[in-house]
């Protein structure tokens, strides 16, 4: 059976050109970039090129502002703990985050909370957008960091980050953004956004897993997370993952070049899908902002059915989607993002994220539109909640 992959916010396949760029660094050019001899120099040069490619993609003014990490999670941990630990005892211990952050931000803050830091969660509206007044009100003298994600991984909503940047700058507070889902998908410039720290991850943009980057604005001093050798100008120890770094560089270059074309393609496919779903299926809600959203991301709640049952059923039909974020699918918690935008838990449990990628076609969307209604109907036919609802409808109670 042909499979249709619609889970690109979880991860993406490595772009063939990215893979081709990486391969030489496993065998022929396998040197340790810290080595003085020729193998080392070859590796060092490859890293230099990649660093410029990443800097280009996000508009950093110098490649020295980019450090390579093992992924988005490490970048988030590094930015937040690095700031917290370097500022603690000096300026203060208060951190402000949005309530829809990825667990890499949220759980890091929770950990810090246990160790004496104070964390304020902002509010969001029904689309998942933070309120700037609420942010201003939350700021204290002891606030050392604001962390607001650029685009949400579950519902795709894009934050008014440039406005947050202005407030942070005015108040002299560091601003971190988890841009793992927006980098490479929508135009983004660290200066326009006014961020001091920005996390990104290669495997969301057709690069390899296990490699990411943290942008650290020149002059921003934060503690290291990994201590050891003098790698990355003493900011991140560990033998550089050369093939990974080369892959992230190449993926960044391609993302920049193809961004406009991909955006249009993805927007038109998702709009078609959204319209089709809302036409074909009853009791469905779209989650996230209808316009201020990532071009590839849709999120729906199908009432009276449970999400895992729905995605398993779709998987049997060759359609790969996910419930909320992939990281929580092993757990039974309803998504904290859907809770934050006000979805009642029983409806949140029936939510599905559909995230498209560059290779998806209109044909595939047509297949989804043909398949999805019958899959939902099959599950509703065994749902006691649906039965009750239909009974009420028949009794004229609704």
């Amino acid at each position, binding site marked *: 059976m042909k499979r249709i992959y619609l889970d690109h916010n979880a991860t993406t396949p490595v772009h063939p050109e990215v893979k081709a760029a990486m391969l030489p660094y496993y065998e022929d050019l396998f040197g340790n970039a810290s080595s003085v001899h020729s193998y080392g120099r070859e590796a060092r040069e490859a890293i230099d090129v990649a660093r410029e490619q990443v800097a280009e993609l996000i508009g950093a003014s110098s490649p020295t502002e980019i450090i390579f990490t093992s992924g988005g999670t490490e970048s988030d941990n590094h930015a937040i703990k690095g700031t917290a630990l370097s500022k603690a005892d000096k300026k203060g211990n208060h951190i402000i985050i949005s309530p829809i952050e990825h667990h890499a931000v949220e759980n890091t803050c929770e950990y810090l909370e246990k160790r004496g830091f104070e964390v304020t969660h902002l509010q969001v509206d029904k689309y998942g957008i933070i309120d700037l007044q609420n942010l201003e009100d939350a700021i204290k003298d002891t606030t050392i960091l604001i962390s607001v994600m650029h685009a949400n991984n579950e519902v795709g909503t894009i934050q008014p980050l440039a406005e947050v940047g202005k407030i942070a700058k005015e108040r002299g507070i560091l601003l971190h953004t988890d841009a793992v889902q927006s980098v490479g998908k929508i135009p983004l410039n660290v200066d326009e956004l006014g961020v001091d720290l920005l996390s990104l991850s290669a495997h969301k943009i057709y690069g390899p897993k296990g490699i990411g980057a943290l942008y650290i604005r020149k002059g921003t001093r934060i503690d290291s997370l990994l201590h050891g050798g003098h790698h990355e100008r003493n900011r991140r120890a560990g033998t550089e993952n050369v093939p990974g770094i080369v892959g992230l560089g190449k993926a960044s270059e391609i993302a920049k070049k193809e961004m406009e074309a991909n955006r249009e393609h993805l927007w038109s496919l998702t709009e078609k899908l959204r319209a089709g779903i809302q036409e074909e299926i009853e009791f469905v809600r779209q989650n996230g902002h209808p316009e201020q959203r990532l071009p590839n991301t849709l999120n729906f709640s199908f009432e009276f059915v*449970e*999400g895992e*049952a729905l995605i398993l059923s779709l998987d*049997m039909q060759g359609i790969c989607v996910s419930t909320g974020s992939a990281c929580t699918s*092993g757990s*039974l918690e309803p998504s904290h993002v859907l809770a934050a935008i006000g979805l009642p*838990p029983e409806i949140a449990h029936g939510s599905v994220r559909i995230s498209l990628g560059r290779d998806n076609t209109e044909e595939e969307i047509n297949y989804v539109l043909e398949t999805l209604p019958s899959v939902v109907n099959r599950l509703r*036919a065994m749902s006691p909640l649906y039965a009750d609802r239909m009974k009420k409808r028949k009794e004229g109670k609704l």
Partner: protein
Amino acid sequence: MKSEFQSQYSTKVMEHFMNPQNVGQIEDPSGVGDVGNPTCGDIMRLFIKVEDGVITDAKFMTFGCGAAIATSSMVTEMVKGKTVEEALEISNRTVTEALGGLPKVKMHCSVLSEQALKSAINDYYERQDKPSPVNIPEDEHEQCDLYDSDEEE
């Protein structure tokens, strides 16, 4: 060893999930069990028909994950033809075994099926105004979030 890291369903579970047996309602049931909580993402409603102390039919409706649907299907299959007393021997462990195992994080769904069955039998006794011998097992966990508490941090 392997299964500890496995969060996957057995072939048997997938069979029962894709082709669940006994979906639906019994019009004139001898007992109905209704357990679970929509807030946690699971509700199981189990109907039994008892004739001369023997369960002649069982049906279910379930709002829940793949494991919830598969265990519902399996438990209804298992009770059919059993006496009520025999049916009370069915536990979440026997259901799970019959399904070829469940991922650790999904064990509570099998508890749900035991609860649903026992509460249907309980209802059967109550409808007859007989004292019920049934002990409905408590889900060991009070909150919906079961995964975290089991695992390391």
